[in-house]
């Protein structure tokens, strides 16, 4: 795959990819963009092995998800209290309702296990099918449905508006 072809495909996916990682990183835009760039480099290096068996977007998201998981394993989030991290991620215009909603959402997502969080983000924010989610998360479709259901149940408890 040529550099220009790769860039063209990335341009079409960048917003979705960045939103996926932004939600996984609970609104930390700098961290999510760093992971996105790392994922794109990994994808570019491996682009020769992309056989088109799945959609480019699914393949790219799988790499991005693996980068995110690597990052989670490298960095210990317990080092910073949840409230402090969430406070850093509230979008500008803090007094608005949207800011409070985002804060509540990110804090709730932060409390979910990684698989549940990823399932929720892919399904509700990226409108991915169960099959695509199974490809991205590298787990069976039944397990995806289980994580999605558990994630929803947990969010019902965590989100208080």
């Amino acid at each position, binding site marked *: 795959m040529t550099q220009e072809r790769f860039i063209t495909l*990335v341009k079409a996916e960048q917003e979705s990819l960045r939103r996926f990682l932004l939600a996984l990183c609970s609104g930390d835009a700098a961290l999510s963009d760093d992971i996105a*760039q790392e994922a794109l480099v990994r994808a570019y290096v491996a682009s020769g092995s992309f056989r088109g068996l799945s959609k480019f977007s699914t393949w790219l998201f799988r790499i991005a998800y693996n980068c995110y998981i690597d990052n989670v394993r490298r960095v210990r989030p317990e080092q910073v209290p949840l409230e402090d991290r969430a406070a850093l991620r509230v979008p500008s215009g803090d007094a608005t309702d949207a800011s409070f909603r985002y804060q509540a959402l990110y804090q709730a997502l932060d409390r979910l296990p990684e698989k549940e969080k990823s399932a929720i983000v892919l399904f*509700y924010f990226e409108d991915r099918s169960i099959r695509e989610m199974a490809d991205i998360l590298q787990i069976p479709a039944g397990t995806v449905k289980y994580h999605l259901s558990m994630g*929803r149940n947990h969010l019902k408890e965590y989100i208080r*508006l």
Partner: protein
Amino acid sequence: MNEKSIEEFLRENKPAVPDDPTFILETRRRMSEVEGIKGEVDRQRRHGRIVLIVTLLTGLVVGALLSALVMLHPTLPDVFDSEALAHVVAVLQPWKYYLLLPVAGCAIALGLTLKIR
């Protein structure tokens, strides 16, 4: 929150991605760096391959010269002050023509391996 309202809440609150025109520029920069690293790795691989081929050819030429020397000067073992070595050379003497065959075989195998890689 019930099931329906949590689903509505999630769908209505998709995170907004901050617009960043430098994102693709940064991607291009990193890809150029990757290309640079790839080029350097290729260069080093080519260099290693050339060194290997030169070593192989040198070995073949030296081997061929030594074989020729042995064939042209059958009394050469006399110059060595070692009976054991002279004995080995004497044993190998009738097989001298066949000794080049495994050497050539190795050279061809190595050549094919390098070509495949």
